[in-house]
């Protein structure tokens, strides 16, 4: 029987009422009295030397308040990077300065050169057109392998080269890995591209800066996934504003997918300009600006090699990846191809020896950083593709090859630094075979054949590390922040609760699922719990939402704070009921004394906490409000198996997804409907990456896929109805809810299934096709069919 409330129930998302009826409060809905508007004049060349900026005519245009250029930011801090990677030789990565407005050079199409603040947005734009620029175009570097050659133009003149770092992991394993390859019975090699993507949240970025002259306090409203992180980075590193004088508010946010984690120059600009002008300053990105300036995702070029012994056991794995950083280091960019990618290369398999090399490269393109999955999709894609290729080369069943190499005993320490606590990869594979109806595949293939179509079935597994992360561990790995989460639980006198969480919801449904947990713990109705997030002034310091961490880390903090509440409430109840604390039980919102019929309602106790007439004042304080910070002991390791069935039109190369099934192990589940939705969305984006989405710069650094006319997002008719199952549950062993996180799995697990399926379809027609790079456009598939 499905439950109708609490953990395991699927109440409808309460936040959807305001989202679907146009009553949300997004950053662009915020208009402050007297606010001015900023328009950024952006570079239309990918690389150039700024010889002069003449703002005289523009400054005289109607409505112009002030025009800022890089010169106004001399002495202001650089946009910081939050993660320092140490290279193979023990040296820190090369870390260029990132000024709020370009100084000396422009480094990508879209780099901001000047900022015009005016009474209206149109006036700001008019004036920007009147700025006279003298920019000497320089040769641009776009291709990563060209960028690291001797003599390549340098993106940053003060760095030794365009190589940010050359990372080896685990460096000490390298000789043993090489030896294993030398001894291998079979080696499968695959070269592939993990295509560059634009995140495209429905809501473009917006920033409103405000300054209160009376209090000296600055406020930034921003489309952010983590307002506290922005407050820390911008306040401490860029503008030098102490945190008690800076408030960051991220109200309703219309999707993030990672690209709204980072601290962007526009946020710093609006905050800075508001103070300089003593006037609120607003910026609303256009969709065109979003394509050019939101951090992009993925963009890896990889060679992967898998060594097997004569019995088809994986004996070693070696990868060589070029990872694009773009022109500057975005907030978490260096960590994505390293600690979020290299550590996942074991996948679901007991490969004993692994060596990962990553060269991170600067190019004249917009910065690249985390996008849904961040590093883990790149790891999963190459691993699951190379295994599929190996199975075909060896003539063995790809599922059998996987099963043979599965990790089956837990906890399992991988050779790439992480320890999986739980999992059951055979169980999710078995479940997949059932929900995807493998048994009916051959009949469906025969039917497709009759219609002149090639049908293919692709399977893959995935493992991911989420619930980021133990602070002491990430600190050792170069993070310049802790990755705990926080919650304050405030119980009101009449029994309702407000949870102030450091997590941030921008589509995940926290306002619905978090109360389910508390409702269960206390035995009250979910409607008595309200979730507050997104404002540094009324939430405890938290690290925000990304890396599928909200429930696993933020939810755990909330559980810990609620445990403190319950412990204190029991003391109050014990006092009133004249019993000992240890004998008090809380069930269904009633405190009772074990073995008696004496009881008190939840509301009686909460009232007593605030009206402490009959209260143990000598032992405990009045009030009922507790805060907890939770620092996880380990990552969580969701895993699963995915299957995709495609039809390929051999005449045109067009691929259609006919079926898609997912069997995930997310540990315990709070709201199955929300989990379904997260998986659906993730698979949609994975299918988008596999078939449609490709961000393309030409060799001069012009963005060719700069609008929806050329950048193909998946639409409803590009995806099938999904079969999604999450009944395989091996609960996480180290967080109080036993949850693992489900936000990114769909995007991580789906691209290899799609590509494996297309390769299967082509091979079924006798074509010797072993790989096609994503996106698998009709043209690419047709070319593969005819090569």
């Amino acid at each position, binding site marked *: 029987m499905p439950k109708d409330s609490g953990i395991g129930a699927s109440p409808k998302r309460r936040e959807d009422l305001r989202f679907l009826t146009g009553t949300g409060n997004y950053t662009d809905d915020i208009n402050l009295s007297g606010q001015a508007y900023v328009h950024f004049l952006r570079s239309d060349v990918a690389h150039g030397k700024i010889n002069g900026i003449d703002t005289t005519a523009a400054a005289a245009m109607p409505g112009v308040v002030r025009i800022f250029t890089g010169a106004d930011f001399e002495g202001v801090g650089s946009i910081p990077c939050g993660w320092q990677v140490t290279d193979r030789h023990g040296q820190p990565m090369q870390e260029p300065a990132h000024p709020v407005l370009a100084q000396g050079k422009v480094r990508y199409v879209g780099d901001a050169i000047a900022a015009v603040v005016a009474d209206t947005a149109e006036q700001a734009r008019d004036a920007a057109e009147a700025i006279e620029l003298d920019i000497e175009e320089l040769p641009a570097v776009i291709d990563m392998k060209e960028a690291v050659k001797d003599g390549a133009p340098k993106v940053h003149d003060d760095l030794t080269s365009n190589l940010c770092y050359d990372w080896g992991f685990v460096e000490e394993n390298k000789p043993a890995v090489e030896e294993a390859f030398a001894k291998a019975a079979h080696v499968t090699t695959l070269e592939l591209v993990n295509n560059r993507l634009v995140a495209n949240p429905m809501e473009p970025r917006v920033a409103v800066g405000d300054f209160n002259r009376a209090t000296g306090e600055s406020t930034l409203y921003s489309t952010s996934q983590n307002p506290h992180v922005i407050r820390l980075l911008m306040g401490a590193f860029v503008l030098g504003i102490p945190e008690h004088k800076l408030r960051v508010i991220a109200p309703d946010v219309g999707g993030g997918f990672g690209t709204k984690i980072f601290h962007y120059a526009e946020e710093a600009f609006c905050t800075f300009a508001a103070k300089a002008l003593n006037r609120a300053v607003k910026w609303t990105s256009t969709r065109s600006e979003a394509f050019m300036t939101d951090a992009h995702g993925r963009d890896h070029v990889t060679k992967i090699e898998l060594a097997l012994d004569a019995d088809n056991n994986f004996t070693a794995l070696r990868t060589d990846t070029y990872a694009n950083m773009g022109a500057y280091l975005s907030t978490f960019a260096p960590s994505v191809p390293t600690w979020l990618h290299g550590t996942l290369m074991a996948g679901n398999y007991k490969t004993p020896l692994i060596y990962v090399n990553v060269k991170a490269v600067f190019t004249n393109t917009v910065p690249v950083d985390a996008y849904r999955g961040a590093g883990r999709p790149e790891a999963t894609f190459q691993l699951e593709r190379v295994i599929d290729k190996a199975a075909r080369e060896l003539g063995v069943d790809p599922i059998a090859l996987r099963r043979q190499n599965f990790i089956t005993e837990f906890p399992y320490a991988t050779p790439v630094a992480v320890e999986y606590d739980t999992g059951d990869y055979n169980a999710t594979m078995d479940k997949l075979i059932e929900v995807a109806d493998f048994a009916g595949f051959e009949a469906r293939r025969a039917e497709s054949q009759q219609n002149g179509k090639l049908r293919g079935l692709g399977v893959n597994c995935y493992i991911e590390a989420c619930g980021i992360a133990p602070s002491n561990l990430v600190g050792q790995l170069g993070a310049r922040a802790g990755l705990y989460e926080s919650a304050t639980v405030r119980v009101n006198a009449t029994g309702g609760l407000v949870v102030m969480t450091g997590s941030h919801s921008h589509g995940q449904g926290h306002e619905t699922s978090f109360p389910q947990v508390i409702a269960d713990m206390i035995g009250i109705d979910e409607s008595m719990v309200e979730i507050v997030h997104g404002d540094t002034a009324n939430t405890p310091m938290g690290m925000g939402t990304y890396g599928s961490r909200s429930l696993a880390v933020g939810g755990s903090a909330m559980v810990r704070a609620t445990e403190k509440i319950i412990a204190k409430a029991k003391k109050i109840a014990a006092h009133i009921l004249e019993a000992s604390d240890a004998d008090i039980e809380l069930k269904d919102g009633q405190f009772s004394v074990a073995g008696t019929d004496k009881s008190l309602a939840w509301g009686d106790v909460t009232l007593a906490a605030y009206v402490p007439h009959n209260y143990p004042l000598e032992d405990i304080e009045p009030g009922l409000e507790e805060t907890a910070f939770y620092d996880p002991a380990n990552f969580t390791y969701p895993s699963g198996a995915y299957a995709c069935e495609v039809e390929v039109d051999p005449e045109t190369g067009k691929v259609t997804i006919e079926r898609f099934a997912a069997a995930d192990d997310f540990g315990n589940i709070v709201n199955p409907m929300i989990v379904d939705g997260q998986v659906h969305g993730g698979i949609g984006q994975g299918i988008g990456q596999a078939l449609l989405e490709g961000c393309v710069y030409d060799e001069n650094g012009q963005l060719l896929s700069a609008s*929806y006319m050329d*950048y*193909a*997002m998946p639409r409803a008719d590009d995806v099938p109805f999904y079969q999604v199952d999450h009944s395989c549950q091996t609960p996480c062993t180290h967080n109080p809810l036993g949850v693992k996180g489900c936000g990114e799995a769909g995007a991580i697990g789906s691209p290899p299934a799609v590509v494996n399926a297309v390769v299967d379809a082509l091979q079924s027609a006798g074509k010797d096709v072993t790989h096609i790079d994503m996106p698998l456009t009709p*043209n690419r598939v*047709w070319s593969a069919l005819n090569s």
Partner: protein
Amino acid sequence: MYNFEFEKPATIADAVAALGAEDAQALGGGQTLLPTMKQRLAMPSKLVSLSGIGEMQGVCREDDGSLAIGGATTHATVAAEAAAHYPALADLASHIGDPAVRNRGTIGGSLANNDPAACYPAAALGSGATIVTNAREIAADDYFQGLFTTALEEGEIITSVRFPVPEAANYQKFVQPASRFAMVGVFVAKFVDGVRVAVTGASEEGVFRWSEAEAALGASFTADAVDGLTVDAAGMMADIHATKEYRAHLIGVLTKRAVAAAS
């Protein structure tokens, strides 16, 4: 968007007069022009809306059997009202853009714009339509003159388009996955006196007639008749979605499918 003046005349004559102003421009459904203005790539001094001109609206069967469509008729109206008379044309209109685009965009705007990936040019050329303006009548064969270029003079308005109705016709659109305009579109129409095949989305010269296919299909109106015919890839467009060779290949595939589906 820069500032502009706006007029909404009720007659063709008033519209022509209003368009006499310097840098004035006709406004159909605005589905192409307004985005261009928002990006500040166009800066007309005045927009003359054609949507209030009654004589430019609607679909009507002429005495000679041809179908006359007012120049300001929306794609949605064509999709609904031409269905009984010219199903292939109605079907083409029903697959342009999305409902919002179809409820605003007009046939006159589409033909005046002559986007190399647009659908209506293939229908007009494939049907041997006549473009009727405030000043003259222009045969489709003379009207399309390359990418975004037509025989229209400055200030000339498409008041209606006259389509001869073929015995059988079909439009096959292979969509560009992002814009969902035609990556290649082929319109095939079989008349008593011959077959016309018009191709959009493919050529560097814009919409064109594939004369080899017309000849072969004139002799035998079967998909097999197109076998062995190829289009030279040299003159095709290439972009991030499709190579010249792929576009040339698609023309053959889509032509065969159009013939097979023609009704």
